[in-house]
Every structure is written in C-alpha cells, then in structure tokens.
C-alpha cells in the first residue's frame, strides 16, 4: 500500500486560528447571543399575555383593599390613586418601560417596590429549586446506574416499581404524606414555616427538606426511569459498547465510561425539558409549607388582585425558565463533541 492514498486525503481539517477569532467564532457564544435575543420577544409576550388575562379577571384591587363597606366614591378615588383608571394599553406601556429599567412597579396592596420584595423571595424559591434539583439528580444517577448494571434483577425491579409509583402520584400528595409522616407523626421536621439561612444551616435545611423532597421525588422517579432505560438501550444495542467489552475492560468501566457518557446527553435534554415542571412546582409546594417564596407571593397577590405583583412574578418565572433552557443548551454544546466542533 502507498502512503499517499487518496482516501486518507478526505480527512476533515480542523483549523487552529488565534484565540480571539476562536472566541468570536465560537458556536457557544453565537448561541448565547442568538438565544438571548430570541428570549426578549418571549418574555414580552408572556408579560403581555399575563396583562391581558389579569385585565379580564373580575374584581378590583381598590375594592378588595377598602373592604365591602367602602363607598363608590372612596373606591373610585382609590382606583385613580392606584392608576387603574388609565386605559390598559397605557398601563401596559408604562409597566413595560419601568420593567426595562429594572423597576417592576409598586405593589397595589403593600405600596412597597415590587423589585425589592422579589429579591428577598427569590432567595427562598431559589434554594428550594436548587435543593430539589440536586436531590432529584443526585439520587437518580446512582440508582439508575445500579439498576442498569444488572437489568431485571432485584434492585432494578424494586427501583422501577418505586419510580413508576412515584410518577403516578402528584407532588402535593407527596408533600401531604411527608408532612403527615415526618412532621406530624415523628416530628423530625417542622411541618411548615421557613428558617432563614442566617439562623444556621442545619435549621434552614430542616425547614427546607420536606418541601424539596416533595418536588424532587417525582422528578427523581422520572429521571431514574429515563436514565435506566437509556443505559440499558445503549448497553444492549450499541456497537461501541461491544467494542468496549471486546477490549477486555470491566463491566463498571463499560457502564460508566461508555454507556453513561452517552446517556448523559439524553438525560441533560430531559432535565432541561423538566425545568419548567421544577419551577412550577414551587407555587403549590410553597403554599403547602408556608415558605415565603415567589410562588407563595404570586398566589397571595392573585387573591388580593395585586396585578402588579402577579405580573412581576410571572415575568420572573419566565426569565428563569428561559435562562435555564439556555444553560441546558450551552451545557449540551460544551459537553457533546459533535456539537462542540460544529459538525453536522
């Protein structure tokens, strides 16, 4: 054979340009910019939709604030004071102008600036979401790996049974069960209420654990089932697994270095798709456990027809969801060599 055979000439060249051009040309950077630009109309659309829906809901904040005894004159004065007498288009544009400069308005009820109120509550919700996220993935990955290691054996069957059951039960049912068992029956954990981090990490975690588990458990079940299934598919159906086994390496190495590596991309997609569920679950769970987070704030604001606060909460949820999806896509781009090198 000759060294200069033509078939070797079709090697795909990977150019090595300077660092600056590489960063500017980086698919990741372009992805970020493109996605951030695309997020703007989404968030404006969400806020507009919320605004329209809220305008259609019967009930008036001024009336609710003043109580049933208030005279029509009082209510009208209050309405004017709150700016609710302006035409809706005017009100929306005013709100949007403020929002773009970081001012989400003043609460109709408490007369406090919404932005600072949200700041405090974002911490609580953030902690809850973060804990639930870590717990769901942190348990799902080892359980799925152990199940896939010996498919259809005892561990696999038990974990699949648990996760199928868990998927059938809503998170608020789990929350109530957890409260019943761990808070009421055994009083390991406080049933409700929030202890801020400033009063010690231990106490803070104790107050957060049951709510976080309530959110994490269904997700854990879902991720476990998905990952276990994908791992088994890889192990049984993929040629590169046979190659790995034919090398003479051990089964754990095949599972971790080969199958899991490839399954992790599918898992990442599923986790990304479920971020909405994860964030949405906080609304009910914060309510059940009386956690002063954004979800709770939003429900309260709906009850008092405090449209400014509702609007702000919805926008925050939308922004977080968009950012979370962006992070997922970026991770994908960073982790998967096929995307990283912009091939195909």
């Amino acid at each position, binding site marked *: 054979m000759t060294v200069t055979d033509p078939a070797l000439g079709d090697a795909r060249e990977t150019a090595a340009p300077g660092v600056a051009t590489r960063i500017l040309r980086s698919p990741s950077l372009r992805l970020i910019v493109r996605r951030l630009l695309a997020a703007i109309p989404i968030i404006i659309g969400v806020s507009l939709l919320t605004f329209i829906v809220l305008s259609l809901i019967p009930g008036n904040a001024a009336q609710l604030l003043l109580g049933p005894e208030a005279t029509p004159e009082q209510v009208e004065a209050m309405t004017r004071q709150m700016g609710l007498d302006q035409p809706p288009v005017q009100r929306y544009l005013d709100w949007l102008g403020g929002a773009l400069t970081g001012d989400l308005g003043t609460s109709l009820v408490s007369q406090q600036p919404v932005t600072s109120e949200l700041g405090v509550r974002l911490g609580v919700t953030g902690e809850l979401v973060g804990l639930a996220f870590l717990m769901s993935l942190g348990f799902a990955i080892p359980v799925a790996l152990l199940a896939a290691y010996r498919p259809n054996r005892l561990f696999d069957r038990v974990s699949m049974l648990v996760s199928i059951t868990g998927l059938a039960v809503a998170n608020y049912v789990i929350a109530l069960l957890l409260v019943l068992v761990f808070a009421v029956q055994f009083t390991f954990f406080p049933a409700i209420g929030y202890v801020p981090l400033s009063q010690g990490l231990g106490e803070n975690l104790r107050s957060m654990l049951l709510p976080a588990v309530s959110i994490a458990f269904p997700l854990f079940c879902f991720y476990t089932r998905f990952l276990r299934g994908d791992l088994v598919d890889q192990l049984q159906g993929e040629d590169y697994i046979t190659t790995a086994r034919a*090398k003479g390496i051990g089964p754990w190495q095949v599972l971790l270095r080969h199958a899991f*590596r490839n399954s992790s991309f599918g898992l990442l997609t599923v986790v990304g798709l479920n971020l909405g569920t994860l964030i949405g679950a906080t609304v009910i769970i914060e309510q059940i456990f009386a956690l002063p987070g954004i979800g709770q704030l939003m429900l309260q604001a709906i009850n008092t027809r405090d449209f400014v606060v509702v609007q702000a909460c919805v926008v925050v949820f939308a922004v977080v969801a968009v950012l979370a999806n962006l992070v997922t896509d970026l991770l994908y781009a960073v982790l998967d*060599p096929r995307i990283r090198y912009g091939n195909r």
Partner: protein
Amino acid sequence: MSIEEMAERTAIVADGGGQPLLEVEDLRVRFESRGRRVNAVNGLSYRLYEGRMLAIIGESGSGKSVSSRALMGLLPGSARISGSARFQGRQLLGLPDREMRRHRGADIAMVFQDPARSLNPTMRIGAQITEAVRAHGDVDKRAAYERAMELLQLVRLPAPERRFHEYPHQLSGGMRQRVMIAIALAADPKLLIADEATTALDVTTQAQIMELLLELQERLGMAIILISHDLGLAATYAHDVIVMYAGRAVEYAPASTLFAAVRMPYTEALLGAIPRLERPPHSPLPVTPGQPPDLTALPAGCPFEPRCPRAQDDCRTEAPPFTEHEPGHWWACYHPCEGSSS
C-alpha cells in the same frame, strides 16, 4: 469422519502443524426469547492455525457474527451456547465473565463492520486506544500514550499526534477503521476477527484496509478470521475458506482447492453473486433466488434444498453430512457440482 481426523487432514493441507490456535467443535447457539427459538449456529466445527487467515463466508443471517461473538463471550444473555471452543487448548465457552475478560483483547480481538458506530462518539480517539492498552497489564499513562502512538503508526493513520486528540466524527470512514484496528491490536492478540471490517467502506478504502490487515498479519504473526459476504474477498486474501449456510458449514477447503473446484451448489450460487469489475459500481448484485430457511424451524432435509438447482428427492429426507470428500475439501451435499472452476 471425526473432528480429530478432519483436523489432521486440514493440518496437513494448511501446512500448520502442531496444536491449533483455535479449535471449534460442534458449536451451537440458540436464542430464546418469549417462546421463540432462533437456531443461529447449528454445529459448526473448524480449526485455525497460527498465522493463517480463515475466511467465513455466507449470506446475511447465516450465523457468521454469532458464531464468532460466541468465542469472545459477547452474546446477549438470551443466547444458549453449547459445544466447545478451545483457544491454545483452553476452553472458552462457559467461562465466567471475569475470566473471559482476560482473553478479550489480549488473545482474541475483533474489528466490526461499521466504524462509525463502533467507536464511542463522545470519547477522544486517544482515550479509546489507551483504554484498550491499559485493559491488560499495568501500564502508566505515559507508556500508554507511547503505545497508542506506536499503534496509530502501525495502522498508518496520518498525523497521529493530532488524531489522538480528535473525536471519531472528525475522521473519515477508512481512518476510523484504522483506529478500530489499532484498538484491536493494543494488547497483541494472537487472533483477530474482522467481522465484515471492510463492508461499510468504499472500494478503494476497502482494498487499503485489506492490504493493511495482510501486512499486519505478516508482521505480527496473528491468525485472522475474515468474516464476509464476499467470496471474491476470500479468494484474494484467505488461506482457508468456510462457507456457512443456516448456521452450518456447507463447504470448507483451502482457498486454492475451493476455487479450483467448487462442489457445493450454494457456493456456486454465491460465486455467481461476486461483483465483476466491468459492472458499474453500486449496481444491484445478482442474488441467489429465494430466502434462507427460517431458523426457528429448520427443515429435516438439506436446508438449501428449496433454492437448489441440483436438488433431488433424497435431499428432502435427511440433511447431507458434512464430510471430507476429497483431500482437504469438505462439503455437505448429495449431488455436488462437477468441479469445473467457475
């Protein structure tokens, strides 16, 4: 004639002498799932001597891959394996996975058909090779790197230092197959099984990979089992040829003997299916009419009978035995071809 006698004859013909490297005797593989039984391999026997190239030829589904994967313990749990396969005298079948692992890569290595799917898409080329190097023996990182470079040069991958850090999708099909061969050679196997290693490649690359395998065999003294649909490939490269049909060997001889006088009507039909140079590339091959038998319910008679132009009544009653009819030339047929070269 017994397998011992058969081996003696082939030993003489094969000029191998001494103990065979691999001795397969009455290998049977059955898959059982949900009440369905697939008899994929039905009593396959052969011997392979050091430094030889044995071609296993047959249509899709004839049991070529299953019979060779059985040797390495790479079949799924639904496979029921019986018979015997001794490698340098040691029984391979029925070994627990932990012990089988010592043979994989180090004694027997395998290169697969589709290099695009046989490499891990998420791992760098280098890591996939060093993993194979380090699977056997206590090799530190540095030494594994050196060895990987050596292997990449051995398989003539251009720019090995750069390719070491690349991913499979950055390589062409031919280059990927070279990497697969490098992985297979990592632990100095004595037997390399190339399971349709060139089928997925274009004609030029196919020839290059075959030349590479031949050269490596000469340099490293390995035995090679070449699995293919293509009798032409066997005629060009192999020392010995087994033709398989429905999980059985139906003709077996040194390549020169076989192609001088094909006896088995099935082999004859396969020869008719060899692509000729004058045929435009990628035009459909003339296939043997008919389908291979249903492996869940094999007929009592000759399995090739429904498709055989030479079939007679006696072919239906009992399957013809696989016997050595001429020195070194085995076949299973009651009414063999006259032996005129094709």
